[in-house]
């Protein structure tokens, strides 16, 4: 098991390094330009991209359990300013992925993913929406081929994992 979030086999760190862009982590020398560029760090001292990277470099898994990582804007300002072009936003995305099984995913994100996997869209299309398009003379977009999504994602088990996932954070407006 883990003591202070570090597993003996460094499994989390190894997994990150195998993912697309994950190996850019090794270029980080902790200069902190990411944190000085980050608009969230500017309004919240506890949000510190440099420390996030340090944790992962040291194979500390606890980051995947922190709700804080979901307050990354994905604006990529950190990556633009990083002298080593570390793919910081992608690395935080990987930490988010690891947190799914332990419930560290906002409810809204789960709902959106479920809509994408069941409807092929992030939103449920209503009759009035279709009528508005029709009135504006905009083309009918048909119904997305959702069955195909299920087929191509089968080996990944995405649909089952998203269906069974639960969020520790409930619905809208929780703080």
């Amino acid at each position, binding site marked *: 098991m883990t003591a202070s979030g570090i597993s003996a086999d460094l499994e989390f760190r190894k997994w990150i390094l195998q*993912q*697309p862009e994950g190996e850019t982590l090794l270029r980080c020398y902790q200069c902190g330009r990411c944190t000085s560029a980050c*608009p*969230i760090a500017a*309004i919240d001292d506890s949000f510190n991209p440099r420390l996030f990277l340090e944790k992962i470099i040291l194979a500390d898994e606890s980051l995947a359990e922190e*709700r804080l990582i*979901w*307050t*990354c*804007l*994905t*604006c*990529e*300002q950190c*990556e*633009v300013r990083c002298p080593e072009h570390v793919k910081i936003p*992608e690395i935080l*995305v990987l930490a*988010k*992925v690891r947190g*799914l099984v332990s419930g560290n*995913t*906002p*409810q*809204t*994100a*789960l709902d*959106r*993913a479920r809509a*994408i996997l069941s409807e*092929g*869209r*992030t*939103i449920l299309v209503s009759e009035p*929406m279709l009528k*508005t*398009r029709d009135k*504006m003379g*905009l*083309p009918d*977009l*048909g*119904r*997305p*081929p*959702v069955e*195909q*999504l299920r*087929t*191509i*994602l*089968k*080996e*990944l088990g*995405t649909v089952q*994992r*998203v269906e069974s*996932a639960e969020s520790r*954070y409930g619905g809208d407006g929780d*703080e």
Partner: protein
Amino acid sequence: MGMSKSIEYTYFPGCTIPFRLPHFELTMKEVLKRLNVELITDEGHTCCPEPTTFPGIDIEAWLTVGARNIAVSESSSRDTMALCSGCFHTLSIVKHTLQSDKAIRERVNRRLKKVGLQATGEVSVKNILHVLHEDVGLKRIAKEITQPLKGLSIATHYGCHLVRPVEATHMDDAENPRWLENLIKVAGAEPVDYEDKMACCGAPIGPSDESKSFKITAQKLRKIRNAGADAIVLICPTCYTQLETQQRKAVEYLDPEFSLPVLYLGEMLALAMGLTDLVLSNSKRYHRVKIQPLLEKMGVDIE
């Protein structure tokens, strides 16, 4: 002029623009029609999938579904154009990844083969600035401007996902892009520089921390106000929802009472092309901050 050949794109509609903000599609389509650009939809497309939360649930699924959309686009020889910045972001990154990473390309294609599709990443994925600024060109657009937006100072909001990362988006600059400013000038208005132009609108973290999200929005609006802009012009539907639809909620964090009209790029160009009625016919439904004062400032008579 009547002889000039039209340019065709596969139009990737996404979810938000066609169903929540269809005036984006409506105005841009009319603008493009005048520029001899045609958009062709393909019913085989699904959600891109959206780039702000879905990758954090399953990044491999995000790449795979994105690659399926790329494969659908590759079934024609046309370039693909997404009006939505989120869609463009996903599709341009997936395209770039497919092209540059053989291992990912192969494993993703093993999955796509099950539905008879294949993605190479060779198709061009463009946003509306590539189409207007690079493909059509400012000179051609200038010919269609019949009602220049005289006297208006307009601030740009590019939005993060349209621009970054530049190796995938092929935009002009990650920190100081200029294409939108050039379009404002062609439309007859004055682009306004302001502090932290490329700062995020705040929307992506709405689901996890609403107050932080709106604080970022309020800071952005304050900086634009301090620069003396009459309006903001933008491209992304999510930024629009944050900066326009939710503006009132956001300004409460810093400057209650303050309001600033927001125009979608298609609306700005449509106004400059004299399509005033088209823009105003939907303004009440989709704009919470009135845009009529802009027309009054230009000296345009409105009913």
